[in-house]
């Protein structure tokens, strides 16, 4: 097996960062369940992230995979309005 090139790891890391910021801003990412305790204020469980990705994919009529596929990243990178899609 060959090591994943550093640039790809960084790219993935970048995508996840962008996704977390995006989902936090527009899909209420932070898990508000009372028992949710985490050392790192920004820690978000993978399943919570995947659920929010599904919510976003459903909103935009994308294939609902819960993964950061290219179509999903493509939407996240588009210029847009700052109002949340899932309104509080």
């Amino acid at each position, binding site marked *: 097996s060959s090591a994943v090139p550093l640039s790809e790891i960084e790219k993935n890391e970048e995508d996840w960062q962008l996704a977390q910021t995006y989902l936090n801003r527009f899909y209420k990412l932070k898990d508000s369940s009372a028992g949710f305790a985490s050392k790192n204020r920004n820690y978000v469980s993978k399943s919570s992230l995947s659920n929010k990705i599904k919510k976003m994919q459903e909103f935009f*009529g994308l*294939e609902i995979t819960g993964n950061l596929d290219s179509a999903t990243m493509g939407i996240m990178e*588009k210029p847009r*309005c700052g*109002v949340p*899609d899932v309104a509080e």
Partner: protein
Amino acid sequence: YNHFPGTIKWKKDKITYRILNYTPDISSTDVDTAIWRALKIWSDITPLKFTRIFEGEADIMISFGAREHGDNYPFDGANGLLAHAFPPAAGIGGDTHFDEDETWTMGSNGYNLFLVAAHEFGHALGLAHSRDPGALMFPTYTFASVNEFRLSQDDVSGIQALYGASNEIKPNPRPQPPKTPEKCDPYLSFDAVAGLRGEMLFFKDRFFWRRHPQMPEAQLTLINSFWPKIPAKIDAAYENFERDFLVVIQGNKYWAVNGYDVMPGYPKNIRRFGIPSSVRKIDAAVHIRTTSKTLFFAGDQYWSFDETKRAMDEGYPHLITDDWPGIPARVDAAFEQHGYIYFFRGPAQFLYNIREQRVLQIDRINQWVGC
């Protein structure tokens, strides 16, 4: 469309607005005009009346700011977040903020202030984001010609659900707002169909469905959201495999698209293919890999262009019905796959076997877009 939780709306029809500051990107007169026009699209179709004030607290306070600008919802520099607005309420309710780090424009070379303001004022009046990709209230920005701009039916239905229709008698009734195509519409027809690097694209009005072979669902997107530099609506399209680009045709012009980019030097005139100037519109185009021929259909005729020789084949045009038994006299769209040509006419598709030279099957077209 969506409203905010609690269906928040203004409890009055007379709403004031005040422009607190300006962007250096465009003249203050242009900003005034863009704001006025952006409010007018909503007042034209509801009983709402907007009045500008120049001091004191207005319902809709409009300002340009960058990064943290006083409401605890910071902007993020150029691109990304463009603006935001607060739902109807006293105080900050209705207020609308534009990110000063963007390049604001009255045209298309930057973010068009009218289009963004019209969207944000939808929020300031009580509309949340819509899932309809053809709606103004869709979350992402897509440039559209300001002079041809019209609210979609989704936007009109959403705002009139809050405030009702305009109570003014209009001398000349407004044309019907544009509707977003429905994948299960039994009368659906396609404007154009083409493959692109393994995916299928089905064009209809300002939109296209993008479908990946392994995916049952097809994603509906505005054409200009993907390709801002081609026309909002096209007549025909085909994939040029040899040169790995998509050709889209509108009127007597064509564009070559490589991925997201329109290739330099386009649009070109379809005369270059040898199509006579009497042809004003191409209905369908299809590239056949095995013969390296591209067929152009217009009215009840078609032409055959040899991509290898880069020249029109002799003796064309032919009548469609002469060479394609079982295919209607006119077609809307066509594409080739694995030795078959799929012809589309209205709600029907005709599966044509090139080698056997006959139609094998006739189906409804909705299945291609997930219905």
